């Protein structure tokens, strides 16, 4: 059977329509971190170190009050930097209204409006396209729930500061690693032009952040983790 079919399959392989392969090397090289871990497994190791630091510093913060302000507990998802601090910085009243989501875009065009294929919920009420992150950022509203998607990069784009009243829980979302921040409100700042935009800092409620393929996604404004996960699962 193999002998009979093999030439035909080889010819079929040669005749299959495949777009010309793009040269991804420059973009890949630009995305590589400058230094890699010598012992390999940098991602897992970095995560393990971050988690260990999280636990260690949590204890230290409780034990040594004078150093609390100086202690940060850091846990990073791609494109997201989360810092635990003992005191949240001041947020001006009404700052949350300046969401800076970008320009409103028709829902039918939201999927391909950015440089990536956005995942959409079945019933979004509005979509926005921002250009303050490489590749663009898609924001979707479902009532008061906000979904933000962007291409995950090694450079943090979202900075979150969480205080002692906020709990973070590691979760798996659609097969990717994620974090659920809940409890007390925490603060969110976005990066623009390589700097953190303090004027766009705002308070956020419960937030689910996760990586899915090349994307980093966050859902904000749900009451429970289950509700956030249900929305995450509905994204297509």
């Amino acid at each position, binding site marked *: *059977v*193999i002998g*009979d*079919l*093999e030439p*035909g*399959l*080889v*010819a*079929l*392989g*040669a*005749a*299959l*329509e*495949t*777009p010309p*392969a*793009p*040269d*991804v*090397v420059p*973009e*890949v*090289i630009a*995305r*590589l971190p*400058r*230094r*890699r*871990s*010598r*012992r*390999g*497994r*940098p*991602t897992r190791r970095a995560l393990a170190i971050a988690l260990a630091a999280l636990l260690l510093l949590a204890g230290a913060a409780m034990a040594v009050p004078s150093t609390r302000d100086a202690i940060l507990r850091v846990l990073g998802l791609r494109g997201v930097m989360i810092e635990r601090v003992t005191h949240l910085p001041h947020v001006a009243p009404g700052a949350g209204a300046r969401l800076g989501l970008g320009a409103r875009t028709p829902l039918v065009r939201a999927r391909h409006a950015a440089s*990536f*294929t956005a*995942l959409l919920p079945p019933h979004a009420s509005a979509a926005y396209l921002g250009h303050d992150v490489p590749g663009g950022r898609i924001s979707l509203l479902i009532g008061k729930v906000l979904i933000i998607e962007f291409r995950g990069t090694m450079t943090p784009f979202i900075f979150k500061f969480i205080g002692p009243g906020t709990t973070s829980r590691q979760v798996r979302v*659609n*097969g990717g690693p994620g974090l659920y921040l809940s409890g007390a409100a925490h603060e969110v700042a976005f990066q623009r032009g390589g700097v953190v935009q303090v004027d766009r800092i705002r308070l956020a409620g419960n937030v689910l952040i996760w990586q*899915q*393929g*090349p994307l980093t996604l966050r859902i904000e404004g749900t009451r429970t983790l289950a509700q956030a996960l249900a929305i995450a699962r509905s*994204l*297509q």
Partner: protein
Amino acid sequence: LRRVSLAHICAAREGEHYTVVPASSIEEAVPTRVSQTTITSVQRDEQRLIAAAKAGNHDAYGQLLARHQAVAFRAAYLITGSAAEAEEATQEACVKAWLALGRFRSGAPFRPWLVRIAINEAHNRRRSAGRQAGLALRVGSQQAQAGSAPSAETEALAGEERARLASAVGQLREDDQLVIAARYFLGLSETESATALGLRRGTVKSRLARALGRLQTQLEAMR
């Protein structure tokens, strides 16, 4: 005699030797024991690049990618059916491969390993997009073989045959499609296919035999 691609030669294993004969004299690359220089130097060069990349050299990694990104893209395209998504999957796979280079076994071929990561990325994207399983098998217009001048009728018949074969492959389950694609559409060796699909070599062999059997049955049912 067996025609093999240049990519195949570049990824040849120790003990496999080829002589590249000019197309003007014979259109086959003939497996032989004569010319060892080219293969071993290519392998040595690739291992040198891998070692440099492992040490953090971006340029060396770029050279490695330049050699193998096309096959990774082709694999991703077959799965996603979208040029844009295949490009994203390839790019992501290349970044992930860099991050995982510390686990890459010295002396192993880089190409199937990269293809495996690209396949996983492409699967994730297709799953995220909620699309059905199955490879993108679109047959283009036939290209005449070098040195031959088939008649229009012959071309048309060959085109029909390929379309029928593509349709039959498309009706197989995806495991079967993948093993066929690895061997015949991506030009991977049995060992490379095993790495690319995350299977044992023996499993690739048996799965391919079963897949071809089912393909034969499918073709007969279509007659």
